[in-house]
Structure formats: C-alpha cells, structure tokens
C-alpha cells in the first residue's frame, strides 16, 4: 500500500511539474482591422526571441476586426490575453465594463501604452483624376469618399476627427463650421464598412469611390499590394496623430497563466527590433533611432493630437460617436 502511495505521489509531482513547465504557450491578441501584417511579423520575431530566451514555443493567435467591435467582443467574454486596438477609448471601455484590466492600464507602458503612431492619409486612383490634394477637395460635389463607420471602426473615428480638426484649425475653432464641413464630407460617402480593411476592399477591390480615408500604414500596404500603377497616396497638409494603444488583459492572461509572456510581448513592441518591424509595416516608430532610420518612409505633415483639439477620447466619444451624438446627426444611411 505504501509503495502504491509513493508511486502515486511521484506521478502527481511529475504531472504538476509538467503542467508548470509547458513546452508551448498560446496567446490571443485581439487587434483592430489593418494590423494583420504587422502582428504576423511581430509574432514570428517574438516567438523566436522567446524560444531563445526560455526554450518555450509560443503561438500567438490573432483576431482582427473593427476596433469598437473587437472591444465589444472582449467585453462579451472573448478571452484575449492582449488587446492592441485602434484607440484608448476602446480599451477604457473594456476596463470599465468588463473589469478585466485596471483603469490605469495606460500608465503601465511607455508613451501611454502606444508603442507606435500613425495618421490618416488619402488613397486615390492612379493619376489622381479628381485632383484631390487636401481636405477641402473631399467636400466638393461629385467626389466619392470611402471611409468605414466610426461607430464600429477605430480608424474611421480617427479619420472623422482628422477632418473635424482640419476644419477647426481652418475656421478659428468654429465648431459649427467644422460640423458643416464634416457633414458635407459624409454626404460624399456612399457606403460605410464596419472596419478599415473592409473599406480598403471597397475602394481597391470593388472599385468604388475616388478617395479612401486610410490609416497611413494601410494606404502604403495597399500601394505595395495593388501597385503604383493603380493607386497613389496623397498626404494632406494637416492630419491627426493617431496613437493606437496596447494592453495586457490581466484577468484572462492570469487565468491562462500568460501574464508574464503577455507583458513581455507588449514590451517587445518597444524594443529596437519591434520598432523596426513596425516601421517596415508603415507604423511610425516611437524610438528616435528607428524613426531616424526610416524617416524617408513617413512624410512630414502637421499633426494635431486628440487631447489638443478634442479634450481626449472620453469627451470626443461622448460628443461625436455615442448614440445620439453628432455623427448620428451628420450621417443618415442611404442619403
């Protein structure tokens, strides 16, 4: 009997040891629409680095969609270890409504947990037949503008605020004139996709519209994929500094035993290697050394921040994008 018990304890200990030292780890990164290619590259580089450091294989699963839609999925129970969304409001919503990460999540990593930045530019058809150079050209009659739905897409919210901010700056912060400008712009929008990648499909694959309001990285990706004989990137004189944030979802990362690796994964984004991968995928690096190296990739333009013109995401969201907000007044489907 004693011998049987001893064997039992040995087996139990071996099982515990095996469970405590898994040979493979799985992470789920829930991200927004146009980051597919970025995180494919990041995942491969991080897995290689983690394997070399710990000897453990790591598989990172990716989930992509409109940023707001992805945030709702996590709030509804999608057990993401990491969220890398288009704007901090969406992660704030997760923290507030699902309570799966602390409210001060943004203070846990440098640069308010935004390892890279981007902006909103225009993608037009080859030769720019409608002569679109800046924001004013988007509100002219006969111009068809493609942009996703700000209710579901983070990129669309950045684009909307970029247009609004441009109008504010042009009209001495006159909110009414800004609203009129954005209203005229959305009158030129024939269809709203739910996410940035969907809008790129609408513009590039379905051949709809004269101009796509696009993430900078998405625009250059489309340019590379479609070819310079099909589309051109037009950089407006002024646009918004988009700061997509990242965070560990503590509750689920802890539950999966992934807290340490999830944190390491996000910290990797700030390393020189991570920043280089970001720059190669047309995300503006935070690290000055990398930014200098890839300076020719990123045209210089005047960038304003959301805090500067809109008082932060909470205020912007409430005023413009919540139900009954200005966007609901500005845009009427089918008109």
């Amino acid at each position, binding site marked *: 009997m004693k011998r049987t018990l001893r064997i039992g304890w040995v087996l139990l200990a071996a099982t515990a040891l095996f469970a405590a030292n898994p040979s493979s780890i799985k992470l789920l990164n829930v991200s927004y629409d146009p980051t597919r290619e970025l995180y494919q590259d990041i995942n491969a580089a991080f897995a290689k680095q983690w394997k070399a450091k710990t000897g453990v294989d790591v598989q990172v699963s990716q989930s992509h969609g409109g940023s707001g839609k992805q945030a709702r999925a996590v709030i509804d129970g999608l057990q993401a270890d990491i969220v890398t969304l288009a704007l901090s409001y969406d992660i704030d919503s997760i923290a507030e409504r699902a309570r799966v990460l602390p409210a001060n999540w943004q203070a846990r990593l440098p640069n308010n947990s935004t390892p890279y930045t981007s902006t909103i530019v225009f993608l037009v058809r080859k030769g720019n037949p409608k002569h679109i150079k800046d924001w004013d050209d988007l509100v002219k009659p006969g111009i*068809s503008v493609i942009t996703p739905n700000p209710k579901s897409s983070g990129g669309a919210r950045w684009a909307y605020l970029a247009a609004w901010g441009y109008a504010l700056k042009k009209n001495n912060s006159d909110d009414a004139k800004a609203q009129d400008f954005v209203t005229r712009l959305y009158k030129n929008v*024939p*269809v709203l*996709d*739910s996410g940035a990648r969907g809008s790129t499909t*609408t513009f590039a694959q*379905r051949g*709809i*519209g004269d101009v796509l309001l696009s993430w900078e990285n998405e625009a250059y990706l489309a340019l590379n994929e479609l070819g310079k004989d099909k589309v051109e990137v037009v950089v407006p004189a002024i646009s918004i500094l988009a700061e997509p944030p990242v965070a560990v979802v503590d509750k689920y990362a802890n539950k999966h035993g992934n807290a340490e690796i999830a944190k390491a994964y996000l910290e990797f984004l700030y390393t020189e290697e991570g920043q280089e991968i970001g720059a190669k995928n047309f995300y503006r690096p935070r690290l000055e050394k990398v930014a200098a190296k890839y300076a020719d990739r990123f045209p210089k333009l005047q960038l304003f921040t959301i805090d500067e013109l809109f008082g932060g995401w909470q205020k912007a969201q409430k005023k413009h994008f919540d139900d009954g907000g200005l966007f609901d007044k500005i845009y009427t489907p089918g008109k």
Partner: protein
Amino acid sequence: MFSRKRSFELFLVVATQAFHMRAQVPDPQTQDQKIQELEKKVEELDQRVRVSDRTRELEAEAAADKSRSGATVGAEPTGITIRSNDQNFLLKIGLDIQVDNRTFPGESSVPLTDQILIRRARPALSGTVYKYIDFYLRPDFGQGSTVLYEAYVQLNYFSRANLRVGKFKPPVGLERLQSDDDTSFVERGFPTLLVPSRDIGYQISGDVVKRRVSYTVGVFNGVPDNGLSDASVSDHRDYAARIFLTPFLPNTNHPLSGLGFGIGASSGNNDNIPLPSYKTFGQNTFFSFASGVTSMGHRTRLAPQAYYYNGPFGLFAEYTVSEEGLQKGTVRRDIAFRAWQVQASYLLTGDKKGFTTLSPRKNFDPKNHGWGAVELAVRTGDFSVERGFFNYGFGTVATSPRSAREWVGGVNWYLNRAVRISLDYGYTKFGGGAPAALGGNRPIERALLQRFQINF
C-alpha cells in the same frame, strides 16, 4: 436600391443616344464633348451599381455576423427554447403538471380518502452550454412539499461515453426510467417500488454496436427502495449498472425493431438508510416495517426487463428482486422483496406506440377533424416478501400483507404531445396479512384514478 437591370436599361438608352448622335455627324468638338458627357454618365451609373452591390454585400455580412452571435427564441412541443444561432447554447423551459382525482369505490376497513390533488408540479430548466455540456434542473412542488427531483450536468463530448453528475434516476428499473408522461398508467407498477427513484452520484452511459446495445454504470450514495435523498447517511456507496439490448433497432422496418430487453442491477451496503413503505396503485401505504427495524448490511437489486412495441401495440414486462439486510435488536437477516408486472397497450387511433413520448398523428382540433390519440391499456402485477420478514419480527401481519396482486385497466386520451387525460381503474388484492379479527386479509382496494396532465 439601384438594380443591375435598371442600370443596364439606362446604359442602353445612353448608348442608343450615342449611336443616334454619331449618325447625325455633328462637328468633331461637339461630338467629343458629348462623348465625354456620356462617359461620365456611364461612370456614374457604374459607381451606383457598384455601391449598390457593395451595400448588399455588407448587409449580407452583417446579417451573417448577427446570425452567428445572436439567439433564437422558439416554442416547440418539447418546451420553450432560447437557442444561440451557433447551436452551442440552449435554454429550455418545461413544465409538468398533473392534477389527479382519486376515488375509492366500495367499503373498506382501511380509511381511504377520496381527493383531488396536485400529484406533480414540476417546472424544468434544461439545456446546453458550450455545445457538449447539458444540464437539467427539476424541482417538484406537488402534494404540498418542495423536493428537488433532478439536478445534473452531463458531458456529451464522447458519443459512446456520456458522463452525468448530480441527482437523477439510477439505472435499475425499466418503468422508473420511463418518464411519467410516457407511462401507460397514472401510477407505476409494483416493481418500481423496489428500485431507487433518484440518487446523487456519477454515471457513464452510451450506445454502442450501432445503437443495438446501451449501457450505464454509476456510483451513488444509495437510497431506500423507491426513495430519493439529497445527502448520504453512511460512508457506503451503491453501485448500479444496466445493459439493454435493442438488437433489431437499426432497421426500423423490421417487425422486431421495437424489441428491447436487458437487466438493471444495484449493489451496496445500506447501513442505517431509512426504510421505505410500499404503496398501492391508489397510493395508499399497504406495507411497512415494524418499529426498531433498521437497514443493516448488503442490499442487492436485480431487475430483468423487456418491452416490445409494434405499431399501435405495446407490451412491457419487468421483474425486480430487492434483497436487503434488516436488523431488529440482535437479529439480522437478509430479506428478499419481489415484484413483477406485465402491461399491454393498444392505440385505437392507429398511432405508433413506443417507450418514449407519444406524438399523435392528429392533434386535438375537432374543427379540423383532429381528435388526438386514444389508448387502451391493461396490466397485472404482484408484490411479495419472504416469510422470514414476519418470522424475524421485521414486520407484522397486522399492518403488512405478505403479498399483493393488482389488475389495472385504463384509457388514455392524448390530445397532443403535451396534454393527456387518463382514467384508470385498479383492483388490488392482498394475501397473507392483516389479522383475522379484521375479517382475514387486508381488504381489496378498488381505486378509480383520473388525471389531467400537461408536460412539455
């Protein structure tokens, strides 16, 4: 919505105009201007068609998305359901209400009370979570008490080995395993008195050999005959198993496809488990134990069982022996209780009879010539205890007969799958019990039981 057909028509009009204009041969400058205008119109039309197509595409994507994440509420013959569109989650709300009217015609020295009562009032919550895990919760509020009848979780991932944990029917008696809305009579027969009603434990079950063989094995707390409890009273466990064969089932056209037979059994020590009392068809206690008697030692139940269903005809038989250790003072003996029954039923309306719920071909709806299904059923059965029960003082003939024989005839009217009205007449004769001073054996019990039942 701007359709392709409409745009094609417009395109034809524009093209025809272009042809006429070319035919008129205006000056080249005007001609180029006209062509440019037409090209612009064609481009606009093309954009409108593309936008229309894309809008439809997005609407379809949104609908598919919603369909994946949403849920559907339904009302089905088996209950009210809320089902996730990905089929992974289900909540079903059911109800079982039985209102009985018991009448005991004739004279009897034993006071039998005519009454109308709520025999069962059982709301049921059941369903599925994460596709493979079922749950079932069913209390009973009937007869003025609240009893938890079923509460279990079942893992269905492996089709040949389902794991069930909680409180449910142990796999012993055939009629006990049949749902009370499927039995042919208002009350079950004698063999059910000798098998557990509900018990708490673990069970693995499955169908193998192309559904020809079903098996169940489980370990339970152990409960008295026909009893149920929410906690164990001893360290001992009951082990139960059942194997049931339906050798011709896969071929539903075979005349023996409705044949099933098998055996259920349980075994375990039953020290200090409360002792049962046994009731007649009219639900009057006819057999009880003397005071000071306790259960002590081993208990074994064996229950060979069979049924045969062919079209409207049904035959059902089972035999049960329950041998259990009893102790009074220093005397301890194993005493055997035996019971059997045979049932036959026939659906006059030609509907198909089976072990599970009957669904009439035509539900009750006289305006549309629907009357439901009508069934005639008869059964006979017997209960007996070995003489040692009395010889060792575990009971007395003053309160418990040595045997009982019953004959029951009934008619069932199934208005639809959920509603049934039943009328049964039961005749129970007792032997070897009750003192001579009362005129020999315990008086014959004549019981007229009527039930209105809704169950979904």
